[in-house]
Every structure is written in C-alpha cells, then in structure tokens.
C-alpha cells in the first residue's frame, strides 16, 4: 500500500466500484479500499449471518432457512431497467460476462386495496383491470402518442410542447382520469410523489419512454435482476477494475485521511501504511464531516416469506408500487419481491423488501399497507437509513463523495451520480466505449 496512486477509492459500493472500473480501464492507477471484509458497502447483498448480525444481533437465523450462503439479501432494494443507463454501462464495460441476469416477472401497482399489472402496451391496456372501458381507449391513445412521437416531426406532437406544457397538460389532453395518472406517474415514470405534474412534461415523457422501451426489450416487465442479488454488481465492476490493474484491499480500516495545508487531499493512512494520491472518491461513511443529511430517511423491511405474494401466486418476482395517494401519504411505498429462482435465498423461500421515505415517528406503521399484501412472514428485519449528500463538489479539496442510495426503485439516480462524479474528477463527460480486447502480446 505504501505507494503513489492516481486515485484512491474508499468503500466498495456500486457507485465507487463503477468509477473505479471506469478509471482503471482508462489507465489510472487505482487503490480501492473497504473497511469491511466484503464487497458492496451500503449496496451489498448479505448472507443470513451477516444479515442477522446487522439487523437482529440478538437473534440467530432459524436453521430451517438452510445454508447461510444460499442467501443474498440486498441492503438496497432496486431493479435494473433493461434499457436503463446501468445496463448500458454493464454492456459497454463487458461486466455482463461476470453476472447473469434474469427478468423480473411483473410490475404491479396498488389500487383500492388490490394489485394489478401495469399495462405497458396497447394490448395490455385493453385487458387491464385498472381502467374502465372508455378509459382504456383513452390510455390506448396516450400510448399510441408515446409510441409515434418523433422530435423532428411536429405532426406527431399532437399540439403539445414537452418543454412548455406540464405533464398535467398532457394527461388533460388525453382526458386521463386521476387513477390512471397515478399509475402512469408512479409506476411507469416512477416518481415517488406528485411534484412532476406541474413541471414541464419532457422529463416525465422520457421516463415513461424508458419504461416502455425497457418492457419491450424482454417482454414481461421493464426490470432485470442479477442472479445472486445486487451485490454482484459492485463485485463485477471491482473485477473490471482489478483486471485493469486496480489494487483491492478489503478489511482495511482507514485510520486517517491526510490533507495538505491548503486542505487538499493527499492520502490515507491505515495501520503503518500510507497510500498517496491527488484524488479520493468515497462514500459518505468515510467522510462524516464533509457530508450533510438530506433530511430524508428511508425505512427498509426485509421480509422472509415461504410463499409467493398471495395476490399474484404464479409470479416468482415482481415489483409492487403503492402510490402515495392510494394510502394517504406523501411518498410511495415500494415492494421488491424475488425468490430462489433468482438465487437469492434457499429453495422454497422468497424475499420481499418493503421500503419508503419516512413521514412519521412510527415508520414501521407506515409500511402496513404493504405488509398486508405479503401475507404471513417467516421473519422481518428492519433498518432505517439516513440519506447523505456531499457538502461540496470536491473542487477545493479533491474529495469526491457519492450520495447515499435513495429510495427509488431503480438505478437511474445512481448512474446520474456516477456520471456527475466522473465529470468532476476527470473534467470530461463520461463517454462509454466498448471495452478493448485485452492485449496479450506484450506480456
């Protein structure tokens, strides 16, 4: 470790590992350290022992749950949009060769105490139980508008200007009812509150488009998910980094972060070793004095089930979104549901992770509408995370800090953060290139 590097990265969460991988591929000499003995930081997947040690230290996992390492329980429940930016990065960096993905079977939305599949094309719209007969036609017209919209062909805009009109204007234009707006805005555009309605429609339009294109890609839902859990993602990018020369040190406490007189980062000290670099990238837990609380706290309940979701008995994996308006809240509640067919738990079991942004001082009560949908549980483990963001952009101290993983149900905000940090570190926007075949000649 007593060496000079181009970049030191602290924490092996997904954001840090993607950046480490990208920078190593570009030829930067990277030292990547984690104080924990496993990869993933806040975005790890834990085995049973790790899970109980973290969330229920007083209790041992029930032996009937089977082998410890058959379990990979995500700390942050998210799915990948199959046409999203993370998929794009995975493909370009060839990290797909280390990870196998499966579809998530369905995307569901909660309405009046029941759940229904989110219709993602005209045919599904016609069949959907979410809308009455006339509303189905209006929804069909809206989807046709989405499908035929071309930026350069004003004819296809149907008189709407996505930069001037609000999303509410767009809904009004197609005469869509409140309940329909709700599932479009929350389960397709994936907004967790209603602020988007009064903003220019462009962003909502893009998000709905991403949803529709992601569904079109594999058919069942817009989501894909790695076998063995999300913790495979940081490890895949860490391998990429290592292959391009990145040095990995897990289980290595950081005793001191070193700065010069001007307050610029110079290196880190661990035990008797000092590693130096002009730049550091890290997650908020390594820089408590350089981050602010965002004010948002997320509650996540990891529920172990021995049956599928009662309302969708044939489905091995799904997302359920409970829009805020349905349960008189300000923020949506999400359920991410996966099971042994995605290799995240022992045969015959399932994991449902329920999450939301906390609004009261009795957060577990807030999850009740979701818990009702799950039916009986074998065990429930709960955690509350405070969300952090960096106080400054790193130009003064060369310390580039990632944001906490938010409550959203996908990785789009994570990849935004990756691109943003990449830009601040390198001064260049991230341009993804296909990974070069590895040169073997000069070895």
């Amino acid at each position: 470790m007593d060496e000079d590097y181009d970049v030191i990265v602290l924490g092996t969460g997904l954001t840090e590992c993607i950046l480490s991988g990208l920078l190593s591929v570009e030829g930067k000499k990277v030292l990547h350290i984690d104080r924990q003995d496993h990869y993933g930081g806040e975005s790890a997947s834990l085995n049973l022992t790790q899970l109980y040690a973290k969330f229920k230290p007083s209790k041992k996992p029930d032996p009937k749950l089977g082998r410890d390492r058959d379990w990979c329980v995500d700390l942050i429940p998210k799915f990948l949009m199959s046409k999203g930016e993370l998929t794009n990065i995975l493909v370009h960096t060839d990290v797909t060769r280390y990870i196998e993905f499966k579809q998530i079977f369905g995307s569901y939305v909660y309405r009046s105490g029941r759940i229904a599949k989110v219709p993602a094309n005209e045919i599904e719209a016609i069949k959907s139980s979410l809308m009455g007969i006339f509303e189905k036609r209006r929804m069909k017209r809206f989807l046709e508008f989405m499908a035929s919209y071309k930026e350069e062909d004003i004819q296809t805009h149907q008189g709407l200007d996505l930069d001037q009109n609000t999303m509410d204007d767009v809904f009004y234009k197609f005469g869509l009812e409140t309940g329909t707006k709700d599932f479009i805005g929350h389960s397709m555009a994936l907004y967790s509150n209603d602020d988007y309605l009064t903003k220019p429609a462009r962003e909502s339009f893009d998000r709905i488009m991403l949803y529709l294109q992601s569904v079109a890609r594999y058919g069942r839902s817009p989501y894909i998910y790695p076998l063995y859990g999300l913790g495979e993602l940081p490890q895949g990018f860490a391998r990429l980094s290592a292959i391009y020369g990145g040095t990995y040190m897990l289980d290595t406490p950081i005793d001191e972060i070193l700065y010069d007189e001007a307050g610029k980062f110079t290196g880190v000290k661990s035990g008797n070793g000092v590693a130096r670099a002009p730049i550091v990238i890290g997650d908020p837990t390594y820089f408590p004095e350089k981050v602010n609380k965002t004010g948002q706290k997320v509650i996540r309940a990891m529920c172990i089930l021995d049956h599928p979701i009662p309302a969708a008995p044939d489905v091995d994996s799904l997302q359920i979104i409970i829009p805020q308006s349905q349960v008189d809240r300000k923020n949506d509640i999400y359920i991410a549901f996966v099971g042994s067919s995605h290799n995240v738990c022992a045969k015959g079991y399932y994991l449902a992770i329920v999450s939301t942004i906390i609004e009261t001082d009795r957060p577990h009560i807030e999850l009740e509408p979701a818990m009702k949908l799950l039916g009986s549980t074998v065990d429930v483990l709960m955690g509350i995370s405070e969300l952090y963001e960096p106080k400054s952009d790193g130009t003064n101290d060369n310390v580039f800090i990632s944001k906490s993983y938010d409550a959203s149900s996908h990785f789009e905000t994570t990849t935004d953060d990756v691109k943003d940090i990449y830009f601040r570190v390198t001064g260049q926007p991230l341009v993804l290139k296909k990974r070069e075949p590895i040169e073997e000649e000069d070895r």
Partner: protein
Amino acid sequence: MSSRKKTLLKVIILGDSGVGKTSLMQQFVNNKFSHQYKATIGADFLTKEMLIEDKNVTIQLWDTAGQERFQSLGVAFYRGADCCVLVYDVTNSKSFENLSSWKDEFLIQANVKNPDNFPFVILGNKIDLEENKRAITTKKALSLCESLGNIPYFETSAKENVNIEVAFDIVARNALQQELENDAEFNEDYSDAINIHINGEQSGCAC
C-alpha cells in the same frame, strides 16, 4: 458463465502471488510464456475448447486478477466453479504451506453443495528451476495432497510446457463430472437467464 446449455466448465486457479497461475493458463491456452515478471494485469479468463470422452466442452479458466494479493476476492468470483486448481511454486515453501488455506477459502466462499466431493487439482509449478532451489520434495507434496483428500497432483513448468496438457485434461474431466452432477440438481435454475446485448435484440432469432 452465461449459458449452461452448452457445456461450459468454470475453473478457477488459486495460489499465492507469483507462483505462475497466469503463466500456466497462458501456456495451456495460448502456448506462450513470458519471463518478465509483472503482477497480473489485464488477465480475465481464458477459454479453450476440449474434447473429453467424445464430448465437446469449453473450459473457462478464471484468473484472480490480483485481487487475491490482499485477500480481496469477493464471493462472486467463486460462483459456479466446477473445479478449483491450487498452485504453488516448488521453490517457495510459503506458497506450499498456504495451499490448504486456499482450499478452505475456496470451500467457504464458493458455497459448494458437497465440499467433500468437490474436485481440486494441485500443481507444483516451476520444476524447470535448478534442483538446489527446490524447497518442496515430491514426496512431501504427495503426502499433503493425500491428507487433503486424495487430490490429484502434477508437477509442472509453465516455462518449459511440462505436464500442462495432462494436468488440465484431469481438471477438465473432473470439472465435467462435477458439472453433470450439479446440472442434475438444478436444471431449471439456469433455464431463462437472459442475454444482454448492446442492441437489445433477444437472442435466438430464427432469421
């Protein structure tokens, strides 16, 4: 790692830094050897088609990419391995003493169903070096292999291409055996893994 339908055997190679893991793979797959010492950079996995008992198999040899240097190989690296090759350097007794730790580490991390039956192969590498440099005798090595559960043992030279073909033939046979047993158990699990392509087209188009 992707498709389980064609026979793909994942083999991982473990051992201390500098024992010749990358060199052995390179010699076996590309018939190349390089003297110049450089900690492994850019080595991912190498694949080679082999014919084992009339069956075409693809053997995929996974290099540690240097993550082993500070004990930082994550669990993902070990997933789905069909055989594990443990390498030491016959002139370096420390690398020999670490063999059983590497084996234990593998069994813990890889979460294999039947640890007692999982196939390992041990290679004592660099036998081309002068006799007086040798730190571990064949007898000593064989006795360790026996005590670790009758693990097949070969003495190799990646430099002179000694015993590499025979060693990897056994690796492939044992991996195939393991894969067939595994497959019988979890056939369906791998049935609908998807293939992510850059243009997003699904694989298996009939045109």
